């Protein structure tokens, strides 16, 4: 039993499809993420990376296919020619287990950094307040912005805001973390501090799915690379292998283009 649970993927996407009206953005994606995997999701703009990530925590509802998070299949029901959420509470639970970090941080502007961190643990997970605060302080320490606990997001730099957003995600004790281009909105000189935090998380053995344009970081930190092209997985394999010896011509081009920029 225990062994079975350990082998079970943290996230499993089965033939996932998503259309926006007539535009089919995901055309059948299947992917398993196991505990400790750091999966870099690469692909040119518009290839469906964000949509795929957002289908995992149901910020977008797939049109067809199945999403399994920590062994629990997301309950969807038929509606029109697509799917709809069948169990609201299940989705809320799954979202806390698969925490998301956004490109533009999306911190709550009316709350201090500390309040941002304890909000979901206290009000969604209903954990004791004192425990949440102590833990949030430790997380802020970890991402290096403990001195900003009482500041408001607007008074922080982009890099500090993103580190706060990562700490907010961690505060929910997620099983897996979803990053959607976490450094794309940052000034170049602020990218390093956020990547350093993410590298530390990867080294702790956290399960992470990471959409990024930082090829060097992906090559260095990811255990596995998935390359999306027009809504399909075009290349998928261990990071060192796919970069050394890409199977698809498109991926070969993609990495040489991005590296020469």
């Amino acid at each position, binding site marked *: 039993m225990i062994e079975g649970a350990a082998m079970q993927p943290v996230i499993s996407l089965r033939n996932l499809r998503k259309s926006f009206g007539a535009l089919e953005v995901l055309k059948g994606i299947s992917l398993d993420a196991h505990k400790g995997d750091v999966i870099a999701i690469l692909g040119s703009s518009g290839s469906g990376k964000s949509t795929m990530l957002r289908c995992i*925590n149901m*910020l977008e509802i797939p049109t067809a296919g199945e999403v399994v998070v920590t062994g629990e299949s997301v309950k969807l029901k038929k509606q029109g020619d697509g799917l709809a959420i069948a169990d*609201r509470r299940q*989705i*809320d*639970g799954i*979202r*806390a287990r698969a*925490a*998301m970090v*956004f490109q*533009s941080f*999306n*911190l*709550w*502007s*009316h*709350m201090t950094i500390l309040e941002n961190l304890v*909000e*979901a643990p206290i*009000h*969604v*997970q209903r954990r004791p307040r004192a425990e949440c605060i102590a833990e949030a302080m430790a997380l802020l320490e970890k991402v290096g912005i403990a001195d900003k606990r009482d500041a*408001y*997001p*607007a*008074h922080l730099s982009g890099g500090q805001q993103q580190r706060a957003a990562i700490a*907010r995600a961690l505060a*929910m004790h997620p099983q897996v973390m979803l990053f959607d281009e976490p450094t794309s909105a940052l000034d170049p000189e602020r990218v390093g501090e956020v990547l350093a935090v993410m590298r530390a998380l990867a080294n702790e053995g956290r399960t992470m799915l990471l959409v990024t344009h930082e090829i060097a970081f992906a090559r260095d930190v990811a255990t596995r690379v998935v390359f999306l092209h027009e809504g399909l997985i075009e290349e998928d394999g261990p990071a060192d292998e796919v970069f050394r010896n890409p199977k698809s011509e498109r991926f070969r081009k993609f990495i040489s283009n991005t590296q020469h920029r």
Partner: protein
Amino acid sequence: MDPRFVYDSFVQLLAGVPLTLELTAFAFALGLLLAVLIALMQISGLRILRIPAGAYVFAIRGTPLLVQIFLIYYGLGQFRPTLQSLGLWQFFREAYWCGILALSLNSAAYGSEVLRGGLQSVSKREIEAGRACGMSGLLLYRRIILPLALRQSLPAYGNELILMVKATSLVSIITMMEVTGIAARLISETYRPVEVFIAAGTIYLIINFLLTRAVSMLDWWLTPHLRGMSTIGKAEQAK
């Protein structure tokens, strides 16, 4: 004009201030509750909620408050049997409650438009972050959407409060002895309208000056996250 008489009138009119403030507070609070409801109906995206809310706002904004006061005060009498059976008659036969009802209904219509703007200004990204953390429904509204929308609406809604203070003067017409009601009585006794109205106007001016200050203090206290930012910064933040 006799300054002495202006002063005497002023002192006499002060007796009406408690009622003016009471009407304002009551009607403002009820109006705010109703305004939240109507604004939520307006942005719900559901036709069965949006259309009645829109019609309500249209009807109230398109007719004078005085006409609404008359309609409620004299008109509701026609429904006396129904109201009696509902146990509401002891309310609506009193000018006091009719006045409060008319003022709240009126304030709700204007206030809901202010709140609707506030609700629409809440950043989609902050809402999405709430969803991504497992918030939905009431919790999302209570913790994220309403606090942001109300803070955004506060300066404009403060204006609503000032309008309410002035609007209470209209219920003097249905026998309420608030500041304007007492003024009307004084005039009928003395035939010196100019002095009395100068005194009455001064009282409203003082009340509104104090309320304006109170609202901006509340705004300052509720928006530490916008402090030290230029107006452009605030506009950016609101996106």
